[in-house]
């Protein structure tokens, strides 16, 4: 399943934010993938992969996972301001 989420942090998905999101994703039992619309999906539990998205506040990202609970956790982490 896929959900859309908007980057909430005022400074975007920078180093600290990416580390926070990756830690949440790593704690999920099911892998979660993140991509920009039209972009290639990257694993949400990889700080480096998240940083490649270069996503400032307000960027819409698409999350995909086989688990709705994992999706929700990662979506919350990315959407948090």
């Amino acid at each position, binding site marked *: 399943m896929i959900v859309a989420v908007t980057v909430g942090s005022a*400074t*975007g*998905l*920078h*180093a*600290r934010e990416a*580390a926070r999101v990756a830690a949440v994703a790593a704690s999920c039992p099911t892998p979660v993938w993140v991509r920009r619309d039209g972009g290639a999906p990257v694993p949400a539990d990889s*700080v*480096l*992969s*998240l*940083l*490649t*998205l*270069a*996503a*400032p*506040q307000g960027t819409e990202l698409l999350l995909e996972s086989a688990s709705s609970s994992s999706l929700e956790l990662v979506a919350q982490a990315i959407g948090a301001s």
Partner: protein
Amino acid sequence: MTAGIGAVLDPRAIRTTESAVDRLVAVHRCADVLEEIGAVERGYRPAMLERERLMSTWLGEGVAIPHGVDGSRALVRRDSLAVLRFPAGVPWDGGRVIVCVAIAVRGDGHLAVLSTLAGILLDPRRAAALRSSTDPAAIRAMLDPAEAVT
């Protein structure tokens, strides 16, 4: 939205022959360079040390990205990066760092450069090239989002 490398990475802020006995000294050197180029107020240094104490800025592939804690943004005069290369390596939170990309920013203008850096580190061949480069111009070109090879 995002600035190119020209706006954030001053050629004077690329140092390729640094040495530091430990992570603390390396972060001090990063702060030295950011101060030298007029990028930050003096208070940014303790903010960088505090950030490193709270959580290592080690990114992987021999690279760390020292920067200040939340709340230190007001101490940034001009969004800037600095690249310090420690050829002998610096012990870092159980690993070893060869390159520090120090970050001092108020906004999100560095995200494109950070993305380029992350892309390099995900590619072992390009990561090795970044670690071994002794040419400031080449390092600058590698980190330039406009010139990035994907």
